């Protein structure tokens, strides 16, 4: 684990409420934690801003005892589908609240809090759209601390919190409930329904108690997004290095800087898999000298990054730098803005950073759910501070 740099933030470290003017910062931070996936939060930011302007600020509740009652009724909400579809068939503002209502009606239990399951990407902000309309607070935390491609890939799964009952709704007025045998069945059935619904659907799942939320969610991640976004913004205004600011805020490490020289994409089992090669130098070197290249493997999100010397054409000396569950983020070199895997393009100047995942993702159950082997890479996880050989 990387020794975390103490964050030098003068503004409040924890958000007590989300106001319309806070939205751009949270969106920018959520894009970084999206690790290349999770969808561009621009659309969600527009929806959240509109909802907050109409209904007023949404209170943010920390997971601590005293702030969140053990018997609170917590409903999580988000979108499922292809980010490329969501930029065209814009997500409807009323669906997140509707998905919660459908699930609450099925359970016969009114919601007291709304939660986020995926802080990386556009799902960071959709819970606020629902909460503003329903007049409920949102928890300061989430189920991943990043973005992952499948619904069962949340820490609550490792705590035995049931994925279902889950609701699924679309803008045409369709809605349904799944009550599935296993978390993987929830993913399979909801994925099929989502495709039929035009490849974007709104889901509410993992209903849980306040006590379960406290134990199984990752605390403070909404506030973390706001802090990342704020440091990106102030870096620009004060001519600081925005990437260094992000790295400092998250206790991460910059790995590599260079230029995208190849992006090979392929579609396998319904996912956007691919490999990007960045020519440049490990941090501290001169990116323009192109002494090294970094290989990024992605499947919607970045899953591993490996380093080799430019002269090493066979790749036998390649070193794995970081793998899932830790976060691998590609940021635009000058602005520090996150680059999604779908927008990775030849010639982009980027910097690659890594962020330690919540330590619970490194448990046996966590690695089984989201480790490199689940995604088809035959290696143990390599954590941010470590390095190992490719197998």
């Amino acid at each position, binding site marked *: 684990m990387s020794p975390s740099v103490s964050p030098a933030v003068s503004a409040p470290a924890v958000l007590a409420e989300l106001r319309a003017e806070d939205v751009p910062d949270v969106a920018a931070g959520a894009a970084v934690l999206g690790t290349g996936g999770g969808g561009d939060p621009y659309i969600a930011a527009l929806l959240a801003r*509109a909802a907050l302007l109409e209904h007023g600020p949404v209170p943010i509740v920390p997971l601590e005892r005293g702030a969140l009652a053990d018997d609170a009724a917590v409903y999580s909400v988000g979108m499922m589908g292809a980010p490329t579809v969501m*930029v065209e*068939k*814009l997500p409807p503002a009323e669906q997140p609240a509707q998905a919660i209502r459908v699930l609450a009606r099925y359970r016969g239990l009114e919601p007291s809090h709304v939660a986020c399951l995926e802080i990386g990407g556009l799902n960071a902000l959709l819970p606020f759209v629902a909460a503003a309309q329903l007049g409920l607070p949102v928890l300061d935390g989430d189920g991943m601390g990043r973005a992952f491609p499948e619904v069962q890939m949340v820490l609550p799964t490792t705590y035995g919190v049931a994925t279902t009952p889950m609701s699924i709704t679309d803008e045409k007025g369709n809605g349904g409930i799944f009550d599935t045998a296993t978390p993987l069945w929830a993913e399979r059935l909801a994925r099929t329904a989502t495709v039929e619904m035009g*490849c974007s659907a709104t889901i509410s799942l993992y209903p849980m108690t306040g006590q379960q939320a406290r134990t199984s969610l990752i605390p403070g991640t909404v506030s973390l997004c706001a802090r990342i976004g704020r440091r990106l913004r102030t870096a620009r205004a004060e001519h600081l290095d925005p990437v260094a600011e992000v790295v400092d805020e998250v206790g991460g490490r910059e790995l590599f800087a260079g230029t995208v020289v190849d992006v090979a994409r392929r579609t396998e089992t319904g996912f*956007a898999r691919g490999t990007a090669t960045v020519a440049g130098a490990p941090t501290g070197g001169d990116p*323009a000298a*192109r002494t090294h290249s970094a290989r990024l493997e992605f499947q919607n999100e970045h899953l591993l990054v490996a380093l080799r010397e430019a002269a090493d054409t066979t790749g036998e000396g390649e070193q794995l730098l970081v793998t899932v569950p830790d976060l691998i983020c590609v940021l*635009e070199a000058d602005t520090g803005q996150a680059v999604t895997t779908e927008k990775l393009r030849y*010639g982009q100047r980027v910097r690659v950073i890594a962020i330690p995942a919540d330590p619970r993702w490194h448990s046996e159950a966590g690695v089984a759910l989201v480790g490199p082997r689940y995604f088809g890479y035959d290696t143990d996880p390599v954590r941010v501070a470590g390095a190992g050989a490719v197998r």
Partner: protein
Amino acid sequence: MHIGIDVGGTNTDAVLVEGSRVLAAVKTSTTEDVSSGIDAVLAALAAAHRFGPADVRAVMIGTTHFINALVEGRHLAPTAALRLGLPATASLPPLVDWPERLVAACSGTPYLVHGGHEFDGRRISDLREAEVVAAAHDMAERGIASIAVSSVFSPVSAEFEEQAAAIIARELPGVPISLSSQVGRVGLLERENATVINAALRLLADGVVAGLDASVRRAGISAPLYLSQNDGTLMDVERARAYPVATFASGPTNSMRGAAFLSGHGTCAVVDVGGTTADIGMLVHGFPREATTEVEVAGIRTNFRMPDVLSIGIGGGSLVRGAGSGGSGGPVTVGPDSVGFRLTQRALVFGGDVLTATDVAVAAGLADVGDASLVAHLDRSLVDAALARIGADVAEVVDRMRLSAEPVRVVAVGGGSILLPEELPGIGAVERPENHAVANAIGAAIAQVGGEVDRVFAVAPGQRDAVLDAAKSEAVDRAVAAGADRASTQVVDVDEVPMAYLPGGATRIRVRAVGDLVLDALAGAR
């Protein structure tokens, strides 16, 4: 031979080109009505090099007129934005996130009706004719003069946009209609924004394009007239009249392409120094490298193809401050503020009282404008420091733009390029080719024509190559249909993006083909 004309904010330049030779180049002032400036520049060109109007095979014009109109919010038509997509997309109606100033400037009025498609071409809901008719009648009551139509996933299926256009044309004959499927790529808000901008410029485009055409005809030239597009390719006047938004970024594109032509380099950094800014871009194989992020134009988010250009506030009119200039005595700075078009009144060499970059260039013997005796008193160390500052600032930007550590050629163009040193520190020598001051007009004169495919394809296992080949030949066919010579037409860009989480191999494929214009082709460039 053919003629290239660049209508900028300050100057209107023209060149007469035969093959790869520049026969004549002239500069005149831009006029308020554009067309009298074209009359003047064509007369000046004829005076510089006699040519028979019948020998001119084509006239190509690049202009910043339309983007300036948008930025200034002037001459915009009262515009309606009709979106076909209900029940989807209602939460973010057309014109969401636009600056209020511009919504007001074009009396922007949003309408939402049923329609739209899913990613795979299925219908979200059927188009309801009565809704479109009702919207059209409301537009008429509000005095709407131009209409933008967008439909969800129209890059996949444009049927509803076309049907709605037919209904509106029947209800409101004569009102121009802009279709989003003709303007942009996947990304509803960005594509729709560009379409609304286009609609707002339609009436202005009618007047400007007719004026340009009339000027050229008055000069006795009967050859076809083309306008430069953002990516350096051409479109014919009818297309330009209908889609003025496609000319937005033609200025930097033309200067970079002109630089490539004049210097003979296909891959290089181009520094275009004007009166107020220096624009730095990269040419790769003869075409400007495109920006990869969303581009905001006048505060509106769009997804135009735009060259990746960085601008810094260094130009001929930039203010010079620092030790010896009567200032604070601190380090010498140049820009970012500029006297702009008032250079000929404010600069020292013209009898003014402001020390500008042009004065420094004259004092150093780099330029011969105005009265050199008026800057003879300048401290040599100040002059050297100011020029060194310019060189260092430009070098830093070139360094940020380049793709590799390998030496990069630097080609300087534009009237202000005289400010640049012979050698940029840490980069290398600067080439300043002949006729560099009219690079924009040359870029317009040598433009090519292109064709593009940008759609979501279902790629079955093992079929990727076949699908890609089909997309490539469709792009080539489109370029040829637009007037490109088939033999010279090649695919210049292929981008495929599998749509995340989707089974069935849904893949967004973007292919662009470009070729030389067949000068006597009658086909319209698009």
